[in-house]
């Protein structure tokens, strides 16, 4: 009897906890979407070649976005100087590939390549990836 009682209490307590957590969670969601009225800030998805990069060779650098509020603008900065490239999409495409050739040196050189995307409402945070350019 004691065991049943404790089991019942544990179940009730668990149900109570689940209810409370789910209520709190739903409250948070509602605050995000109603109180602030701001659409989700897009996140840039930055994909760099998995193979070792060699100077003087061309490579694809893919910049994508989590946003569905297109058209999107995609930014790519190879990090080897200060030049950045920009692609202005027209449809709802969620990614664009930038092709880039790093300068060739006789030694390995790391660069901080960055990507960023913007939709019609927001601009994403920078996503940085280290690109190691090997000697030609």
């Amino acid at each position, binding site marked *: 009897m004691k065991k049943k009682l404790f089991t019942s209490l544990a179940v009730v307590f668990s149900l109570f906890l689940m209810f409370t957590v789910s209520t709190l969670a739903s409250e948070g969601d509602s605050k995000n979407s109603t109180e602030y009225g701001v659409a989700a800030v897009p996140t840039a998805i930055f994909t760099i070649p998995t193979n070792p990069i*060699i*100077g*003087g*060779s*061309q*490579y*694809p650098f893919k910049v994508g976005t989590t946003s569905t509020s297109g058209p999107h603008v995609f*930014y790519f*900065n*190879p*990090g*080897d*100087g*200060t*030049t*950045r*490239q*920009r*692609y*202005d*999409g*027209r449809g709802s495409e969620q990614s664009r590939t930038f*092709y*880039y*050739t*790093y*300068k*060739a040196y006789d030694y390995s*050189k790391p*660069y*901080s390549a*960055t990507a*960023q995307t913007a939709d019609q409402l927001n601009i994403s945070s*920078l996503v*940085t990836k280290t690109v190691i350019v090997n000697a*030609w």
Partner: protein
Amino acid sequence: MKITISLSKKREKFQMISLLLIIYILLSCSISSLNSANKTIQQDIYDFSRGSFDILLRPGKSHTSIEDELGLVEENYLGVGDGGISIEQWERIKNRKDIEVAAPVAAIGLYTASAINYSLPERNESIRYTVKYLTTDGVNNFDLGDTYTAYSFLDQNPFSKYSTITDESLVNIFRGEYPSFLFPLTYHQVVAIDAEEEGKLTGEDYSKIDLSSSGLNPDFDEVPILGLKDAQVPLKAFVQIENIQLSEDDIQQLKNKYRIDPENGLGFEGLPYRDKDLHIQLMKELAEIESTSTEKYELDFSDTISPFYDNYLYANEEYHLLNYEDHPVDKEMWGIIDSGSQKTYYSVGAVNYQLSDSKISIKQTGKEQESGIPLYREIQEKTNFVTDGPNVIDGEGIYFNHVGYFEVDLNEEELASSPLGIYGIHSTYLAKDTKTLLHPTSLPGSFITTPAHGLISLNWAERLKSDTPIDAIRVRVADIEGYDKAAADKIKNMAAEFESEGFTVDIVAGASNQLLTINVEGIGEVIQPWTTLGAADTILKSWDIIKIILVSLFAIVSLVYVIFSFSNLIKSRRNDESLLMSLGWKKEHIKKLRFNEWSLLLGVPFIFAFTILLVASYILKESLLIISLVIIFSIVCLLIPIIRKFSLANVKLEHSPIGTGTVTWQNAWYYRHQITFSMFQISLMTVVSIFLTLVMTQQEKQTTQTTLGIYVHGQMEWFYTILLIFLYLLTILTLIESLLSLWQQRSDEITTFHHIGWSKKQLINFYLKEIALWSGVSVFIGALISVFSYLILFGNVVDSLLWVAGIVAILFSIILLVSLIVLSNVLHKSINFGYKKVS
């Protein structure tokens, strides 16, 4: 005889009454006109001269030599400067309660926009692109060095359907889908301002320059910049597009020869990075391929973009260059932007103007090595930061972010502009061809200081310039609404206070534009807009001087006329009164008769004048007309006993002959007491004619140099004309009166000469010689007084001596002509009404 005397007295009275009536009206009207004209001009200056600020503060000893010499500054004189005022000093001034606006200006230097590319239409064929650039100053064109070459041909590979072969500088820029070239660097004036204070001064919204965000380079700070909307970029690209024969076999052979393997990332594009020698060899080989057809295009950037534009730029299918902001497209766009373009900038010095014999010239200081563009001022390349690849290794990285535009007022006919110092847009043009406008080339060193092409926040000024970055503060004094005496005093007091603190201070209220002719080496004579500082004060002074001279001379001329006429009248009445006394009249009766006569002489013109002016003052609502008349009448009445006393005191003076010299000279000397007044009047008329003309010319030259001066003097012209006509009219009347009086006294002499057989011609000749002698002396004295007075008061008069001689000749001729007419009339009457000639 009795009839003659009676007629003479009646005519004399009528003449006196008429002249007094004219004097009453003329003097009253002139005083009233003088007052109302003064009001009009004061109002005009009050309305137009106060600009958007009152005082210009600059660091100590900021005046350039040309500014000191000419009192003028270049239109955009604040676009260049080494600073000297700190942010703390500016804030202290801004926080003063008696200052409404304190807008700082800090010239940052000549910067280029962030480098961007421009794209040509995609071509699905084998093409050789050759591009070169040209800039212009409006007169001469300059080739901007290198020629850029790129090849594009169909060659499917993992990255594109095209392969491209380009100069090294075009790697990652030129693409088959977007045949792109870098837009060459062009340099533009950047000025730092405080958005809030500048907004108060101009009414524009500059708040965007205070908004900053992080960009794609976390190591760099983003500097928001506003670009001048109507500014142009003087640049043209000459694009040659050649079709070349390049078969698949040819491409394959090239791949084999130059070790190209696109499948493994080793495309043509990266060859300059992999093997420079091989790349040079490839470019040489391709250059030898003959073209099958050629197209040539001229892309004019000046029509397309303004400075600091940093968006997409493209040519449409017709190869017309378009900017993306004004002409967005439906297709996808790709482009690059170089955020490191502000790594270096140019600091420019002031133009070395040379002033010689009132002519301004500018010499070249050198030439830009590659393009041969002439330099007219010292330029110094300076570094903001140094990078090693992506890393800033010295200094702090910045890049400009073009956040919008600002515009400047295009009202070129503005009467009194405030020389804000950075927004001047008046064109410089060739003197011989006013349609040929001049402007700086795309590179630094021009003699023209352009308006600010880019505005950034003052918050960046310390970092980009120095600890004391501010070149000037434009101050608007609080609680004044226009430029009148009280406002001027308040401004002057504040200016003196700032001056004591070590600032160079200029009161700019009423400044106005002015065009200068400058001889520029390599270009010729150009007309350049400059601006004066403080024209309203000059115009007020100018008006005061002319007003004082006019009033004084006019009053003297009138006074002398009244004294002389009354004196003559009193003298002529003296004999009549003696006759009446000998006939037994008592003194009281004579006094009563005299009183009645004077009442008639003075009262009748006064009543007439009063009636006329009463109506006029009612219609014109100008009570000063009546007040002036009453004052003038009172002065005239007070003068009578004084003149009478003086005239009777001179009765006993005996005329003594000189005894030597010609008869003409002896006669003139004998009648010296009679002609003294006439001589004085003629001298005065000469002074009026010469001195006033010289002063007016000098003052007008000084004030009509400015737009405001031209306007104000345009308003004053009619007043000068009317007043001068009055003045001359009165002087001539005075002269006629004095000559009549003189010859009436000598009527017996004239009759005697006639009796002894002198013809009319001989008489005229004889008397005109006399007049010529003393009037010549009078005119000469008047001319001497005028010239020396002008020399002492205003300076050089040598340039005007020809004018003086001309005026003297004209006056002398007029006097002789008037004398001849009067003499003929007198002779006619003397001969006809006197005794007949004994034959």
